[in-house]
């Protein structure tokens, strides 16, 4: 007996992501899913971003890691609301994991929720968490070939942050060639080369993030 099913393997995740999105929309929050390999500099970028924008935006952070609460501890020192998810082995966050902890954040008192995904450039790209936009993080120390080797996250992201710009003189990373390659992968992607350590390029990224958050806060027009 043959039974035609035609059911998406990610259907359950997508339903959970829709629920998260419905909840987050109600509060007018900009929700960012930060995706990059281990050591790409996601947490340091987030620390610096919060330090620069903390006076203008109220941040909530969801930290995804396989083990430890180290990243959450680093961020809570900045006085932002942080929730840690330990995936206990899983290589990505899924929408149900995020949904379970959203209630721990004071959503009504926030402007932006950043979900720092498990360090991995591949798997997290496949799982919608209910975010508004994905941001890909790649450090110059990881090598010029990564965007073409792991294209899905670059296809799906709205912005790409090239971190550790201060290390550029010590690597063979070709910034112009990689920027050109990323543009070929996704012409709509905003690219921000930054150094969280020196602050170089952080202004343009923060300005863009601020605009994303302001756009979400604007009340829907034309309903009166």
């Amino acid at each position: 007996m043959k039974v035609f099913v035609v059911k998406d393997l990610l259907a359950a995740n997508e339903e959970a992501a829709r629920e998260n999105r419905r909840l987050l929309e109600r509060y007018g929050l900009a929700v960012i899913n930060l995706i990059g390999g281990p050591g790409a500099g996601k947490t340091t970028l987030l620390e610096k971003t919060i330090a620069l924008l903390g006076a203008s935006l109220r941040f909530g952070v969801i930290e995804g890691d396989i083990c430890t609460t180290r990243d959450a501890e680093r961020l809570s020192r900045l006085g932002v609301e942080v929730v840690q998810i330990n995936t206990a082995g899983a290589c990505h966050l899924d929408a149900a994991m995020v949904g379970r902890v959203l209630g721990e954040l004071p959503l009504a008192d926030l402007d932006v929720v950043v979900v720092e995904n498990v360090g991995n450039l591949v798997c997290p790209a496949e799982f919608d968490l209910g975010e508004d936009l994905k941001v890909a993080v790649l450090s110059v120390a990881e090598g010029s070939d990564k965007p073409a080797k792991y294209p899905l996250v670059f296809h799906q992201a709205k912005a790409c942050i090239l971190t550790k710009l201060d290390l550029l003189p010590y690597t063979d990373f070709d910034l112009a060639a990689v920027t050109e390659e990323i543009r070929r992968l996704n012409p709509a992607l905003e690219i921000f080369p930054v150094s969280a350590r020196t602050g170089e390029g952080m202004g343009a990224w923060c300005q863009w993030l601020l605009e994303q958050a302001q756009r979400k806060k604007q009340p829907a027009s034309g309903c009166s």
Partner: protein
Amino acid sequence: MHEFALMQSLFHIIEEQAKAHGLVRVTKVKLVVGKMTMALPAALQMAFQALQRGTLAEGAELEIEEREVRFFCPACEQEFCPELPYAACPHCGHAAPHLVQGRELYLDYLEGDDEG
């Protein structure tokens, strides 16, 4: 590595569908996987073998049909298979065509024995 999580959700769907259609044993599972997913067929097969033990799909065959990536170019109105990972239209160079095929990741059909 997330292929394991994908196969776990496959087994949830198998259980649910087998129950709905009165299957007591599943002998074949057919998946469709687009080439612009990050799911590798070999890793899906391995996870399927590992997870099928003790389920009603124990011993079942997993067939995976891969789908090529296809785009539609809104400028010159042609469909094409891109030279991955780049998506630009080979006919007119348009940089942002629409994906029409390649993100599939679904259970197509099951074969099995019913109670009768």
